[in-house]
């Protein structure tokens, strides 16, 4: 009986092995696993990223770098445990070897280590946590957006450049918020009049606004992504504080959706970004035009990151002719970053995080349409990587 069981098990195994090799011979599309945040208040970030990514695939009529691809999208609901479950299903059940999509770093930190340990690739369109940038870097982990600290370093630099003497800084009381303020203070050397930490689910900021008024500063920086920042900015403006304070923001708090949601309160805001709608590069012009035409809404940094991520993957898929089982060749091709980024110059640092330029920007009213929009002002940092890359020993 036992031998029979063994024999049938062996037969089953052989059939399944034969089966899988038969599938490999098929010109089935290459599966890309996209774990992203589509529900909750942060859902529109994932939506923009996904749509930007899809735009690059549509350009090639269902292919990336000439290789047919199938993107399987799952919503993590902003919960690390969900993200991990989806990743396990993608790895074991769907046999996916190429991952992307995560917006929030808490989800990324739950997912990325198990994905890269399984030998699969993860190309990040948004989250760039410090834990995976220094000693924790991995040869199969690539970040197309930025290291999480850098947007805030750029903003600090700009506040410094604008000559603001005394700043109030505001962030939610959790790891990413504290990292943001640390990043800001790394490049801003004026006086910090008040450092305010808020709750992540806070809607009313009146108490903080009274503290800000009492601090008597001439500038404010806040890292309050998505809806938090919209709430804050509306209440800040109504409190009449904008008259005496320059508002200098990282790109998360100053993108087209935020401007759309706060209306006229967006006037006279300053900020920094790694990508701008009006950057004069051919790749960017094409992206902005096509994105508006297809989705009937204004592009955001998240959309451009999704698009750039797809373009990077396309360049590497072309180099290995779609065969990502040649992991070394695929990795080398990704590392080359041989694609035209919407943001201009792009290369990877030693930890496979970006080295890129950062732009300063301002919200201005278009003289013709009377609508508020973001305009680039200049470059605030050039060829900038991150402070953790020195600790990464990849080669």
């Amino acid at each position, binding site marked *: 009986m036992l031998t029979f069981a063994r024999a049938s098990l062996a037969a089953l195994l052989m059939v399944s092995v034969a089966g899988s090799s038969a599938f490999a011979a098929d010109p089935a599309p290459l599966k890309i696993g996209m774990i992203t945040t589509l529900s909750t208040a942060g859902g529109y970030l994932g939506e923009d990223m996904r749509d930007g990514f899809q735009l690059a695939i549509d350009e090639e009529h269902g292919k990336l770098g000439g290789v047919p691809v199938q993107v399987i999208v799952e919503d993590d609901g902003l919960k690390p445990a969900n993200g991990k479950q989806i990743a396990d299903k993608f790895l074991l059940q769907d046999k996916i070897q190429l991952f992307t999509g995560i917006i929030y770093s808490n989800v990324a930190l739950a997912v990325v280590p198990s994905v890269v340990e399984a030998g699969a690739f993860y190309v990040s369109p948004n989250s760039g946590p410090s834990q995976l940038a220094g000693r924790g870097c991995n040869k199969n982990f690539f970040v197309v957006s930025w290291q999480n600290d850098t947007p805030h370093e750029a903003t600090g630099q700009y506040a410094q450049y604008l000559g603001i003497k005394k700043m109030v800084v505001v962030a939610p009381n959790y790891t990413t918020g504290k990292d943001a303020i640390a990043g800001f203070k790394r490049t801003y050397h004026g006086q910090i009049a008040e450092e305010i*930490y808020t709750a992540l689910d806070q809607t009313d900021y009146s108490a903080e606004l*009274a503290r800000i008024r009492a601090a008597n500063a001439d500038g404010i920086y806040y890292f309050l992504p998505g809806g938090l920042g919209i709430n804050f900015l509306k209440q800040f403006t109504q409190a009449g504080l904008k008259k005496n304070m320059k508002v200098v923001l990282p790109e998360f708090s100053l993108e087209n959706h935020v401007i759309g949601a706060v*209306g006229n309160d967006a006037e006279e805001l300053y900020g920094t970004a790694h990508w701008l709608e009006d950057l004069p590069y051919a790749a960017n012009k094409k992206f902005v035009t096509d994105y508006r035409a297809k989705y009937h809404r204004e592009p955001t940094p998240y959309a451009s990151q999704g698009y750039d991520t797809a373009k990077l993957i396309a360049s590497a898929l072309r180099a290995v002719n779609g065969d990502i089982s040649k992991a070394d060749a695929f990795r080398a091709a990704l590392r080359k970053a041989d694609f035209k980024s919407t943001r201009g110059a792009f290369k990877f640092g030693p930890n496979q995080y970006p080295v890129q330029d950062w732009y300063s920007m301002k919200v201005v009213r278009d003289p013709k349409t009377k609508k508020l929009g973001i305009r680039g002002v200049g470059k605030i940092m050039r060829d900038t990587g991150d402070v953790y890359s020195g600790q990464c020993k990849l080669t």
Partner: protein
Amino acid sequence: MSLALEQVLNGLQFGAMIFLIAAGLTLVFGIMGVINLAHGSLYMLGAFVSASAAVHGAPFAVAVLAGAAAAGLAGIVMELVVIRRLYGRDHLDQVLATFALILIANDGVSVVWGKVPLPVDVPSALAGTVSLGGFIYPAYRLVLIAAGLLAALGLYLFIARTRLGMLIRAGATHRETVAALGVDIAQLNTVVFGLGALLAGIAGALLAPILAVQVGMGEQILILTFVAIVVGGLGSIRGAFVGALLVGLVDTLGRAYIPVLLKPVARPEIADSLGGGLSAVAIYVLMAVVLIWKPRGLFPAGSR
């Protein structure tokens, strides 16, 4: 001193808005015994409808009325279709069903309006600030305080002085007796539910100009609302009023003063982040203290 006064006003304003939402929630619980998690969805609907009315050029007052009416109607439909089947059932069933309503409402709203937050400007007449002897205060927030207090007064008069209000009070404590006297309890329930929804809709519409009008905004405020009605005593309007103001004041004053008080005793970076953390739990400490002192809340339904 003026800063303290300003913070007290901030707390009152926050509390007044929590009360508008809490009133409906506590009525529905007190009279029908239903825990309605989807109450925040009605608040969200009020915000969205008034935001889109404003986008289409409606004056502010009309937009608020539209939001309130939409939430009220949605509440009545919700009662007739779903909640009605939950009376007398286990609280767990109610939580499950109304949680499903949250998911449906969130997805429904994102299908209709999209995931991107909607823009609402403060009406220009109220957009400025007023000087209140020593400090300046946003005019719109004064309007919110007034609106919240007016709603509380109106609700008090309605419950205490009208026939329908009397039935509602009676229904909260002596449900069977009221039914035996020939009052159509089912109809009374629908009216109460609609009224609660209407108040939540008003809160959503009034807060739309100072908040991000987006999917999921209902759940953010729902937790505070539950804390307010637990502190005040389930099922009691007076309790909801006191509870909401207490929660508003404790939350606001906590955020304003805990970090400041910690400054002299801790290093600045620790004081700031510890202060942020402590003020976030201040209302839960309040709730715990009240429950130890009065396990049924400050003014439980039916108490004298």
